[in-house]
């Protein structure tokens, strides 16, 4: 198993946001966490990335515990998070943003990885000298994903990559997720767009108010009555 999350409990002050959540991701899989707004999906990813701390349990990546590692060290282990809302560095150029993604990597990897990212996202190469703040929402999402790929992650975590995007761009982003998966990247995907997420996922977990309430393969959950009623509109 590439990632094992075991019995984590996360609090925001007095609010118990994540209640005894456990799940795992195998190498080469796309696993998705779905659930309503406020179910704790982003909190879970932020905790794995080291931005938040769990009071209990453990998070193991590649057999090693990352539960107490500061966020800036987690990246170097091969775990990259594309945060909710993209959070590109708006006043820096597209290429500088990508260079920041490679911060933990040896200088010699930057050129070949830049080339790979530009092949994957030709639009970014066209705009490499523009500041990231001038990009459209879809382009910013591509930049945020490209930036994370610059660290050559073993596991790519995507937090709401389709948020705020037009339907045609949502399709594009999910095409890219499929391509990355085919190229061998392991992906942990958090989405409110449950239909799209379940269509690409090998396995899925449903989060409800901080707890895992259901799990199964993507197609199992897409057929399940409970999921259809709650998240797929009947």
């Amino acid at each position, binding site marked *: 198993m590439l990632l094992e999350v075991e019995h984590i409990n996360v609090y925001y002050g007095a609010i118990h946001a994540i209640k005894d959540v456990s799940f795992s991701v195998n190498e080469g899989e796309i696993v998705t966490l779905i659930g309503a707004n406020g179910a704790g999906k982003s909190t879970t990813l932020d905790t794995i990335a080291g931005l938040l701390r769990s009071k209990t349990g453990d998070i193991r990546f590649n057999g090693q515990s990352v539960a107490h590692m500061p*966020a*800036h*060290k987690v990246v170097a282990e091969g775990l990259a*998070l594309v*945060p909710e809302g993209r959070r590109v*560095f708006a006043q820096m150029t597209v290429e500088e943003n990508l*260079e*920041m993604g490679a*911060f933990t990597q040896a200088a010699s990897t930057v050129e070949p990885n830049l080339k790979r990212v530009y092949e994957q996202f030709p639009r970014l190469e066209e705009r490499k000298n523009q500041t990231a703040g001038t990009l459209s929402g879809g382009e910013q999402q591509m930049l945020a994903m490209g930036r*994370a790929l610059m660290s050559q992650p073993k596991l790519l975590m995507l937090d709401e990559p389709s948020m705020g995007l037009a339907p045609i761009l949502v399709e594009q982003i999910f095409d890219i997720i499929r391509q990355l998966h085919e190229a061998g990247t392991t992906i942990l995907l958090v989405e409110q767009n449950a239909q799209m997420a379940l269509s690409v996922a090998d396995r899925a977990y449903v989060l409800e108010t901080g707890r895992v309430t259901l799990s199964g393969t993507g197609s199992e959950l897409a057929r399940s009555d409970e999921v259809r009623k709650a998240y797929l509109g009947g």
Partner: protein
Amino acid sequence: MEFLSYLISGISLGSVYAIIALGYTMVYGIAKMLNFAHGDVIMVGGYMSFVAMSALHLPGWVSVLAGMAVCTVLGIVIEALAYRPLRSAPSLAVLITAIGVSYLLQNSAQLIWGANPISYPPVVSGTLHLFGGQLSISYVSLVTVAACILIMLALTAFTSKTKMGKAMRACSEDKGAAQLMGINVNRTISLTFAIGSALAAVAGVLLCSSYPTLMPTTGSMPGIKAFTAAVFGGIGSIPGAFLGGLLLGIIESMAKAYLSTQLSNSIVFAVLIIVLLVRPAGLMGKYVPEKV
């Protein structure tokens, strides 16, 4: 010719303000705090170079380096002990702490060197006479302006070309996202304090060489004015600090020459108020709306 001489002394004074303002603006840009102890680091730089020259008999340029080394360490220590524990505290708590650190430095200097002004041996002396003696420019002024331009160019190159410089800009935009890139935010903030404090030491030496008295409160007025310069130019912006510092120095020098020596400070601050009324983000500052 008189005008030219006032202009040159204004540019020289403004260069000192600009060097100090760079420290304010870089620290604000990354830590989002006003380090009101910054002015007193100037004073420490002055005393340290004084000790190096008069007690240890080191040459001028070595004492500048000694002052820079001590202030660099001082900046890192102040940040680690006083400000880092308050990283997620309300900004008012940080501001009051900064004022506390400022008094701590002033009073420590008073304990060590006493409250009386001492006369500072200029690091650079001599005067350049031009136009048959009609225009005199001290070498200190020339060195000050040259140092300011050099520092400005070096900092611009650092923030736009080097990995650590870019990381600094990334941290000042979004600390969370910077951490996700693998950037150690605490170390980057520490580096910013180190650079700002080393520059404060340079400013201290240049200031004391132009106005050769030194006492524990020497840094406060230039510190406040450099802070004004940083806000004037647009706080957080490096070229803004440069422009704000120069303009402030020129305005002060002109006000002293043509309006009133006593009122020169009031005029400087009045200009700040007017600029902020017209352009709240400062001359080169960008108004960035808060995202909700």
